[in-house]
């Protein structure tokens, strides 16, 4: 297993960032802007948070590349499925 002495990432900092981003989301969601803008903004914020969790809490940042590739491998499939079916509404 790993060696004993570790320097840990700043977990509390990530926690604060997540909390702040959540607050921002709550603020944004009720702004009187166009629906599309809101959706794009909110999804952007959500992905940012998700990325923080994956990189630091799940320590993907510190893993070998092989594992990182494995972790994101299913995502293209999810995108393929949803985009293909959505085109249904554009014909």
């Amino acid at each position: 297993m790993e060696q004993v002495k570790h320097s840990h990432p700043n977990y509390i900092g990530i926690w604060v960032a997540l909390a702040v981003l959540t607050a921002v989301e709550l603020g944004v969601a009720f702004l009187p802007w166009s629906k599309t803008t809101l959706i794009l903004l909110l999804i952007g914020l959500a992905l940012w948070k998700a990325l923080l969790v994956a990189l630091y809490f799940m320590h993907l940042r510190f893993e070998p590349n092989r594992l990182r590739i494995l972790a994101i491998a299913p995502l293209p499939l999810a995108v393929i499925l949803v985009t293909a079916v959505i085109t249904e509404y554009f014909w």
Partner: protein
Amino acid sequence: MASTAAVVHEPALEHAHADDRPFIRKYIFSTDHKIIGIQFLLMSLFFLLIGGMLAMVIRWQLGFPGRAMPGGGVLPETMAPGGIVLPEFYNSLVTMHGTFMVFFAIMPLLVGVFGNYLIPLKIGAPDMAFPRINMASFWIAVPAGLIMLAGFFVEGGHAAAGWTGYAPLSANPELTGVSLGQQLWCVSLIILGLSSIMGSFNYITTIINMRAPGMIWFRLPLSIWALFITAILVLLAMPILSGALIMLLFDQTLGTHFFLPAQGGQPLLWQHLFWFFGHPEVYILILPAMGMVSDIIANGSRKPIFGYTSMVLAIIAIGALGWGVWGHHMFMSGMNPTLGTGFMISTLLISVPSAIKTFNWMGTMWGGNIRFHVPMLHAVAFVSMFVIGGLSGVFMATTPVDIYIHDTYFIVAHLHYVLFGGSLFAIFAAVTFWYPKMFGRLMNPLWGKVHFWLTFIFFNAVFFPMHGLGAQGHMRRIYDPTEYEFLAPLQGVNRMITISAFLLFTAQIIFLVNFIAGWFKGAKAGPNPWQDNGLEWATPSPPPHGNFPVTPHVYRGPYEFSSPLAVDDDYLPQSRKLETDREPAVLPAGD
């Protein structure tokens, strides 16, 4: 001590056999991958038999519509009063025939049995990475099967919306009169999905992390490559089905509206989800077959596999492309036609890796010194039959032609050529090939050949004419073809098919008897009856608990038949060290 010779010395074997666990931990709730593999084998052969019996009832009705089935009188009034099959029972029959064959026979046979049995043995590991999860995966599959069987005996009969369970037929009980049966169908498949997922992440971890020293990726047997890619497909496809089934189950029980149009739900969404799972699923049902056939053909031809690297790449390509073609089942569904064109092209492209596989198998046989043992017969038949099924796939992939042949017997012919001619022939090959490893005894080769030839002949007699029926426009899933004038002239063919199907089924009894008799009476096999190179043959038959008395080291690829380096044999096991071989670098135990 330092001996890494292929055949281990007898005293060590005696020791390795000493296994102190009580019977129930050894044979029932066993964590040994070999026992679990055999448990899966018995379970799925049972379901294969059930699926075959359902097929016989289907065939009776199609060959002799409206006539009382001999012996059908034992069936309850709600299914076949006086032995005459009812239309609603016919729909359940077709549904359950497809369901049992796909999910409870072929898939567990390929993935459950050979995934379990072969992976640790062939990569030189003592067991799976997670033996307990492995055990759970079998003991979860059993209740799934029992729930599926129970559906026949509930009020309203069993699921009757086809194995594809198209909504809204499956979602709204009023349309079929089946409510509980359809729910049990969902529940059973959700549970089975969990079992398959548990199995597959176990396989993936095992193959990545537990290979013996020297077993680098490009020395893996093709069967292991195929099982690896298959496990990835199972891992990523099964949960899509589970999610879809959960939504379907909620539509049936909680009154949700996912697939019911009245409140804006979308019937086509079910089809998209089902086939996004379903097409990878059919490759789940063929890739392991291809892998094992590759091993067997190389063995039978006594030649290295032709183009190993491109065989591996073809497996990967089939697995990858398989995610982008699901829409070819939906050309007539009202899906966006432009999308249809895209799916047509991607589907056609899958012919390319399939061609690589086909011609490389032929290339392997070319120039060989072919031994026609029973596994080899089945393996060659696999190539021949799979190609017929694959080529008929090209007709259906072509959108304009599919307009006409979609949902006709042309499809039925295709799917049986790939699933029976392909997967099942490969399973017969694999069972007969690894049977001596599993049970330490050989199946009778003479009866094996009789079984092979009868199966081969009657299989073609049953399913080849179905292409013709399809070309005449004969729809599938119809209870009584004589309702239509344009089908009436085809009734003679239907009857001929039915009679051949009965003979086909009868021929399978030979296999059943041979299988059981071999267990008790078969000739002792010895560790390596086929003179093969794989690691599993370097340990006794059946292998002891822990598989290898000494962790084997691997010095070469799995197909070094007729190598000039092997002086007096025409094979060179992966673990036999020659003077010129260097020791592989060993990772220390523990990490």
